[in-house]
């Protein structure tokens, strides 16, 4: 599928129309019963009417940055009049009464929202199997997971059901599914994109991110989405432009604490060979982040602790489904029993981490660890421009293959440090797969806080360079 710039060039030359683009998208969407990337797809007539309106606007001379471009939205973000289930029975019948700021910005930029994508319940998971409405399949191998929690968004982009998709990334939920589907998945610096209208999971970690097949589309969408928003006090202005510029990256750091013996052999091969490739152009140096290995532990106390608080609002009174019972407190308990097993596990773990007698030993210590990571990345970025890691320790796993929750948590091993340290990070597909039919391997680049544009420009340079080989 073409990138947005190429689509606009073809539209300018009257080689295609947005109506034609939507027809093609609808053809792909009609196969979604095989993938289950979407929980809700908008009516075909409505989508065609939006595409026609985009064509008319173009013919009248309007040039909005995403005019007529089909976009999918993870089903934990509000789109006026569309369901917002978060993959949970507890919000099964909830319809959003307003647009998330990110959604409003996309609509204002001319994008056409095609539907809401599947996810692990409340974005808690790494396989999309925790959705109360059934798992999503990986378009590259339908027996495999597309990753999670933004597995639906990743599958939608990888299969051509949308050009771009929004996901949310609390511990890797955009980058890991991007790695599993051979797409680009970008988590910006904390605060770069407003979370107003994103259903909260762990507020000090949650970020909205972008998935696409082309790095230039990630840059373009980010330029639309970035910006301080009075509705989200954690948001801030971080520079972003619609076009890439020379990144001037010279030194790339490799994390010494990553034990390559614990990588799957295909991941290890891709990682080592990409380091070799990089070292032809850049200075590749070993760096140390001493608390790297403990980051996952910090994440799995901080995120559940915040989730236990954020999810206390689902009492059957304020939102979504209500389970009737004799009295108020019984009704709350019955309603909250609609949460799936993984959500319950994290609420209980979070409640434990915050409970009297354990808060100092668990939650406070996890926050110490987080501060260590911020400090150590700060030190590292005085010597290198970017840090490279594998995105995941393994290639995509089979659906149903991983039974132990802890083994699934380990899929986040390399992605959680960027969330804990508030840093921008992106998954880039390993570009030198010998057999194009092999399952994809993801490479992660992490940049200093606020250098999101430099990171995306660098990825664009790398991708173009690799494609020319």
């Amino acid at each position, binding site marked *: 599928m073409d990138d947005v710039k190429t689509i606009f060039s073809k539209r300018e030359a009257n080689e295609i129309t947005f109506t034609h683009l939507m027809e093609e998208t609808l053809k792909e969407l009609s196969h979604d019963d095989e993938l289950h990337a979407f929980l809700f797809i908008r009516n075909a007539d409505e989508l065609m009417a939006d595409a026609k309106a985009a064509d008319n606007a173009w013919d009248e001379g309007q040039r909005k940055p995403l005019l007529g471009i089909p976009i999918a939205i993870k089903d934990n973000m509000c789109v006026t009049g569309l369901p917002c289930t978060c993959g949970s029975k507890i919000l099964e019948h909830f319809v959003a009464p307003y647009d998330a700021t990110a959604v409003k910005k996309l609509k204002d930029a001319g994008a056409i929202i095609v539907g809401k994508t599947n996810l692990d319940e409340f974005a808690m998971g790494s396989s999309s199997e925790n959705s109360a409405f059934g798992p999503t399949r990986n378009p590259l191998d339908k027996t495999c997971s597309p990753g999670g929690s933004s597995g639906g968004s990743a599958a939608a982009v990888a299969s051509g059901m949308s050009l771009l998709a929004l996901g949310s990334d609390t511990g890797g939920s955009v980058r890991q599914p991007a790695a599993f589907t051979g797409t680009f998945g970008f988590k910006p610096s904390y605060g770069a994109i407003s979370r107003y209208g994103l259903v909260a999971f762990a507020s000090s970690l949650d970020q909205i991110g972008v998935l696409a097949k082309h790095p230039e589309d990630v840059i373009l969408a980010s330029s639309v989405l970035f910006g301080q928003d009075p509705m989200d006090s954690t948001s801030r202005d971080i520079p972003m432009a619609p076009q890439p510029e020379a990144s001037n990256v010279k030194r790339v750091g490799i994390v010494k604490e990553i034990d390559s013996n614990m990588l799957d052999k295909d991941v290890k091969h891709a990682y080592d060979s990409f380091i070799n490739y990089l070292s032809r152009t850049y200075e590749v140096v070993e760096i140390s982040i001493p608390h790297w290995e403990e980051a996952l532990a910090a994440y799995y106390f901080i995120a559940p602790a915040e989730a236990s608080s954020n999810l206390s609002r689902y009492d059957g009174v304020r939102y979504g489904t209500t389970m009737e019972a004799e009295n108020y407190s019984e009704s709350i308990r019955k309603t909250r029993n609609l949460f799936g097993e993984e959500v319950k596990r994290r609420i209980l773990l979070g409640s434990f981490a915050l*409970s009297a007698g354990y808060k100092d030993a668990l939650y406070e*210590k996890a926050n110490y660890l987080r501060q260590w990571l911020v400090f150590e990345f700060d030190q590292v970025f005085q010597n290198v421009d970017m840090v490279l890691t594998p995105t995941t320790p393994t290639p995509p796993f089979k659906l149903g293959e991983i039974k132990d929750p802890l083994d699934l948590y380990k899929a986040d091993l390399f992605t959680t440090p960027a969330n804990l340290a508030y840093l921008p990070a992106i998954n880039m597909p390993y570009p030198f797969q010998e057999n194009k039919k092999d399952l994809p391997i993801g490479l992660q680049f992490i940049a200093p806080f606020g250098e999101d544009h430099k990171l995306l420009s660098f990825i664009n340079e790398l991708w173009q360079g690799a494609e020319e080989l």
Partner: protein
Amino acid sequence: MFNISPEILKHLEELAQLELPEGLEEKMLQDLNHILGTFQIISRVEVPPETTTAFSSPLREDEPKSFENASQLLGQSRLQDGLLKVKPVLEEED
């Protein structure tokens, strides 16, 4: 070092207003203790140095604003005379 006993699990269920279905309690106990055992490494973390990187966000003024669209937010069936209808909160003593 950290261990959740069946009694603590009951207490956590109460705190979180959850009630695990029969059969899930034992599995949950096992899973949670496995997770705690693996991540107990955290208790050895030392006090970090002061960093100059500021990530604190200035909180905006807490100004109550009315939401004009309450019926859409809550669903018409749950409103009665413009007020939210819930089960009795206070029970009469027998």
